[in-house]
């Protein structure tokens, strides 16, 4: 397992190669990238900001949880920060497992937890020149439900 917050372009195939092992029958690679359209607005790019030390800590905690819950050491996550153009990868998650069901589930677990817990923010830049911090929460911010058990 490995996690990293990086400011260089992500190379998905390198993460896929990193989780390969003869015991594994399935590998899942998730690549999140900058979309040209978000909620009807034309996006020209995204600036990712992070609370670096805490983001690294949370990403590591999430991957540790997945390693235990899904019983595979072969999970690697990289998240990029800084300015990204449309189409560039912001996050790559590679999971390999002897069985495909667990590989899918572990991959999904990691991205959902990452989006919920890791202190990373993005400011979308629009074609009209404006820019805005993205707030995925519908209502007021709440403590993540997993908080007490995750940070004993």
């Amino acid at each position: 397992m490995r996690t990293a917050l990086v400011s260089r372009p992500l190379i998905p195939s390198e993460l896929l190669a990193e989780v390969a092992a003869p015991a594994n029958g399935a590998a899942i690679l998730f690549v999140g990238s900058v979309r040209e359209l978000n909620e009807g607005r034309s996006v020209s790019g995204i600036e990712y900001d992070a609370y670096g030390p805490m983001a690294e800590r949370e990403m590591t905690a999430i991957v540790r949880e997945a390693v235990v819950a899904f019983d595979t050491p072969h999970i690697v996550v990289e998240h990029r920060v800084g300015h990204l153009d449309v189409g560039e990868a912001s996050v790559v998650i590679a999971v390999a497992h002897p069985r495909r069901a667990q590989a899918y589930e572990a991959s999904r677990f990691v991205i959902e937890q990452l989006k919920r817990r890791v202190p990373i923010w993005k400011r979308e830049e629009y074609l009209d020149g404006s820019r805005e911090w993205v707030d995925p929460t519908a209502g007021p911010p709440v403590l993540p439900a997993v908080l007490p058990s995750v940070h004993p």
Partner: protein
Amino acid sequence: MTVSALLFASYADVLGRRSVALELSAGATVADALNEIRALPGGERLPAQPLVAVNLKYARATQVLASGDEMAVIPPVAGG
């Protein structure tokens, strides 16, 4: 005691700064620190109960702070 508070993203924008050094009484909690931040110019635009981390871990408003703690006010996260 002194506690440093970090501000990020939209919260850094509304307060016009990315960090602030807070002078707090012994026994002050996260909620007390938030009140100090809210008294700063722009601080009134913070939400009622923002997420907070202390020393890199999410923390509750009732958590007691210690001198030298690094507190961070965490806007809604949007990674991925």
